[in-house]
Structures are given as C-alpha cells and as structure tokens.
C-alpha cells in the first residue's frame, strides 16, 4: 500500500508544484505573493472544461486553457499590479491581489453557480500493475505532463533570451532596466508563464478528480503557496520539490495518521519551515532567484 500511496502523493504534489511555480517565479522577480494565482488555476480548469465540452481534443484543450490563462494572468498583472508598482508599498499590491482573487472566484460563482461541476472522463482510464502495486494510467499521464512542463520551464529559464532576462530581473530589477531590459515585458512574461502552468495544473486536477468548482482555487492556492515557501520562495527547483513533498506528506498523513489532519499538515509544515529554515529547502540567503 505504501507505494500506491506514494504515487497518490506524487500526483497530488505535482498539481501543487505546477501552481507553486507561478507563485515562486512572480515572487522571484517582483517580490509579490500573487494571491490571485489560485483563481487563475481555477479558470484554467473551467476553460479546459468548456473546450472539452465543445468537442476539442483533450491535449488541444489543455493548450487552449494554458493560452487563455496566459492572457488572463497578463491582464491581471496589467490592471491590478502594474499601476501600483513602484508608486505604492508592496502591501498595496498584496491587497490588490487578494481583491483580484475574490473578484475572480465570485465571477465564476456568478456565472456557473457554486455547485461542483462534473468533469467528463476524457481520458480513458485503466489500471495496471507493477509488481504488487496498482497504478492508474491517469496518474501516469499527469505525472508525465507535469514533468514535461517542468523540464520545459527549466529549459526556458536557462537557455532562452527571455529566461536570461528573467534571471537578470530576479537579481536586480533596477540594474536590469539600466542594462536595457524591458522590465515590464519580462514581468508580463513571468505572469504569463506562471499562469499557463497553473492552468495546466487546474485542468489535470479536473480530469483527475472529475470535479471543478469556483472556489477550488482558494485552498489549492494556499497549499501551493505553502509548497513554494517549503521549497524556498523564489527558487524554481524549490517549488517543484516543495510541491511534490507537500503532496506526499499530505497523502501519507491521511494514510497513516488521520484525514482530519490533512490541511493541518500542510500548514504545520509551513510554520515549521518558517521557524527552522526561513529560506526553505532550496532557498539561499543571498538571493539568486529564478
């Protein structure tokens, strides 16, 4: 049973990791906790649902949802964060983020109602055995797609021009702008990439659990935030490790302790990390972020 639970945990954790990446990238560059990020994830799940229901192939729907959320993420940044940047304190941007979060979830609740909506079974599911453990094909697909996205993100950050610009901005925003980097464009790109990953996470969670609802982003967002802090906020590999380990710890908590402690585990870890190692697993005290 341990190995099966481990796979359950990794699958759950990969969804946390995909959301945590968005938190960590944005934080790395503008030092903002983008609390609306959970809602972007929720919009990704719904966008994917609409596309799937209109008969689009599931992988094209996944791409569509990612593109939609890219635009949504950029729009949120343009409207709610950019006007505040540099002019007011970071606290105002944080409050603006909370406002956007409430606005987006309520918007979806108005449009779809607060009931849970069924996600159709678009990927035929089968279970197969490896030794004595049973794994569902859906879990394998989710793990593979998540891994692929994370590798893609690493390549983007390490090998491309925009990636280099992002790394520069995370080191020093002002110096980067003096070197001729269009900082606003880099920030916009960061939001776009983070949102696309969240959308992918949202849609895969929808397929995995067959359920989406307007407030799904709130708890997932908080958990992913905890994962990002656990991994070391600002660190991309940290968000991946943080997400996966949080998922595994939660599932193991339910499996061997009690389900009542599920959320408590996530937040107890968050508090412990803040006490013992404030910079997180992968975080460095001298910031070299993204």
């Amino acid at each position, binding site marked *: *049973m341990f190995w*099966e*639970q481990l796979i*359950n*945990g990794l*699958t*759950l954790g990969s969804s946390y990791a995909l959301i945590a990446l968005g938190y960590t990238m944005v934080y790395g560059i503008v030092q903002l906790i983008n609390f609306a990020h959970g809602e972007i994830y929720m919009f990704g799940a719904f966008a994917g649902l609409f596309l799937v229901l209109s008969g689009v192939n599931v992988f094209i729907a996944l791409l569509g949802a990612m593109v939609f959320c890219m635009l949504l993420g950029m729009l949120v940044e343009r409207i709610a964060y950019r006007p505040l940047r540099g002019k007011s304190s970071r606290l105002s941007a944080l409050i603006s983020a909370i406002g956007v979060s409430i606005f987006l979830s309520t918007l979806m609740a108005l449009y779809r109602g607060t*009931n*849970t909506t*069924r996600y159709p*079974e678009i990927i035929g*599911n089968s*279970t197969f055995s490896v030794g004595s453990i*049973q794994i*569902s094909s*859906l879990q394998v697909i989710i793990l593979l797609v998540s891994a692929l996205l994370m590798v893609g993100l690493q390549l983007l950050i390490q090998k491309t021009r925009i990636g280099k610009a992002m790394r520069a901005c995370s080191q020093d925003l002002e110096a980067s702008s003096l070197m001729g980097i269009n900082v606003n464009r880099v920030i916009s790109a960061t939001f776009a990439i983070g949102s696309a990953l969240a959308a992918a996470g949202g849609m895969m*969670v929808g397929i995995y*659990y*067959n*359920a989406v609802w307007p407030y*799904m982003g709130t*708890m997932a967002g908080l958990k992913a935030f905890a994962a990002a802090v656990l991994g070391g906020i600002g660190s991309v590999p940290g968000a991946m490790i943080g997400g996966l380990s949080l998922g595994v710890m*939660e*599932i193991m908590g*339910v*499996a061997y302790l*009690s*389900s*009542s402690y*599920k*959320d408590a585990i996530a937040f107890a870890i968050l508090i412990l990390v803040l006490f013992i190692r404030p910079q997180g697993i992968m975080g460095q005290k001298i910031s070299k972020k993204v």
Partner: protein
Amino acid sequence: MNFKRNKKVVLILCALMIFSLLAGCGGNAAPDKAAGDTIKLGFLGAKTGSVANYGIPGEKGMKMAIDELNAGKGILGKKVEGIYEDNKGESSEIANITTKYITKDKVVALVGDPCTGLTKVAADIAQENKVVIFSAGATGADVVEIGDYVFRNTLLDTVAAPAVVDWMINKKGWKNLAVITSGNNGYSTALTPIFKQAIAEKGGQIVLEDTVNDGETDFTAQVTKLKNAKPDALVFTGYYTEAALIMNEAKKKNLDIVLVGGDGLYGQDLAKLGGEAVQEKVIFYAGFSTDQPSPETAKFLEAYRAKYQEEPDMFSAQFYDAIMILAQAMETAKSTDPSVFKNELANLKDYPGVSGVTTFGADREPIKSPVCLLTVKGDKFPALLEKIPVQAK
C-alpha cells in the same frame, strides 16, 4: 400660509386615519366571531429563502388535505381553515409568526416547520401556550423532548439506520463494513455513531473507519486504504458531493464497492457528479418514494398531480399526513382543545398515511414504515431499489 386650510387638511387626515383603524378592527372582528365555527391550523414553513424548497411543497400538501377535509365533513362538523405565513426560514420570523398564530388567529395546532432548528424555536412557544405543534420534517435531536404538545412525523435516522444495516447484513450478507465520516460535517458526525451502533447490534464488523472532509476533492489516500481493507460495502454518512467523488475515485482504482448512506446523499448532483461510477452503486434511505405506492399513496399521487400538475415530494406527503393525523385525533377525542386531543395524538398506532405507516412510540417519537432504499438507475433519480418494512417495538 393659510393656517385654517392646513388645519382642515389635518382634520380630514385624522378622520381618515380613524376610519381606517375602525375598518381594520371591523376586518379583524369578523373571523373572531366565526372562530367558534372554524378550526384554524397554522402553517410553519418558508416560502422564500434558502429552505423554501421544503416549505413550498409542504404548503401544497397541507392545502390539499384541508380542501379534502372541507369537501367532506370537516373536523367534528366544523370547517377547517389553514393560515399560511412565510417564515423565510429565519428564527426571528418563525417566533413572530408562531406568536401571531397563537394569540391573534387562535389556532389549535401548528403544522411544520420542516427544519429542526426552526421547529425548536416554534415548539418552545407552542409548549408554553399549550398549543399542539406537529413538525413534518424535523429529524434532528431534542425536538419532542421540549414537551408533550410537540410531535413530529418523519423518518428518523435512529429508525432508518438500524433497518438499513439489518438489510445490509442479513439480506445482502455484507458483514464486513467500512465506515467513512465527513469530519467537518455535523450531519455526518451525528449519523456515524447511529450507524456504528446498529452495525454492532446486528452483528456486523467494522473493518475500516476513516474520515474525509467536505470541500476536498482528493480522496485517493482513503480509497487506497479502502481497497486494501476489502470491505463488503462502504457506509458513508456525509453528503452527495463527497459520495460522488469517492465513487469516482473507486472506479479509477478498479474498486467495485457499494456505498450506503443517509438522506444526505439525496441530491441531483449525486447522479450528475458521479456519472457511471454511482450507477446502482450508491444506496441511500429516505422516507418517501413515488415508486411502487401503497393504495393510500397512489390516491394521493393522483390527486396531487391533478391539482398541481407536478410530482409531490416527501414534504408535501408529510404535511398532508400531519393534517389528516391531527383531524383524526380531534375526531377521536371529540374535542378541538389541544390539551385534550394531544393525548389521542400520542396514542397514534399504525396510521396508514400517504408518507408511510406511522406509529408514535412511548417517547412520542415516530416510527415510520417502510424505509425506502433509493439509488441512481439510468437517467432516473432517485430510483426506488427496495422498501424495507420497520416493526414498531
């Protein structure tokens, strides 16, 4: 300013006010005078707000019963009059309305409310004023304990759960059971001990006890545990959303299991969310089903459909029964005095109502038979699986 003209206007206004007051008194005086000839019953239920879904069909059932009584001989030869205020599902409203029914309308009995919390508010007032209150829906604890004027007629979990567990163990042979509770759901945490006690009494084994939380979607860990515990069936005491998600997960993990629960699973979303995974795999109990009706229920169904062009539900049936049971008690007691006919009411045995057969036990709690087992079958929700008769002790 023309002071005199102003004074005139004031005088006219005063006169108008006095007239309207007199007219108001006149209007009120008429029913008072007729009070000796009609028997008044007050409806307690919400017609607007979040629990209007229970009140609206309840009012229809009550109106239908009163129309039927008046088409015959009424009660003790007197006309019956129902008064229908909307309590909006709010405690302050129901307190005002109950007081108004008792002091102004002088009702002999209150019928409703379908909700436990609201019934308790009204029951305190009714007990104090010695007026019978008959709830057609309150299932929670500490209702009839309020006093000897308080009654209810609905399927209680303490009656239904043992009957269902008996069916599972002795008819289906499901002896090894898993019990899952939704930890942050009060309904679920109250229902689980009732199920556990019944399982212990009927000789079943609990092989796994676990919890989930309402609002979560990840039940992979619980279902993996469930699969390893290999129970014959799963008892889940929570609501339909989580039940559907658990069953979805079970299907993904190739776990073929039946989930049994209470009327918290009674929601259209069970079928919508669960899809194929809940088809004839989720079984829950309820006090009323329009399938395979008894002769009494069949007659009621026909009349209700003809009158309202819609299907009755549990609440319309229970409100209908409440009126008829009250009428029978008054006829037997030959009195419309609540302090007299309440004793007849307490003696009710095997009353063949449209919502099932009702007996009041020694503690005045209703024992209803049969318990309807419902499931999801094709597009039909809910579909009747079986009716289990309950023996009154």
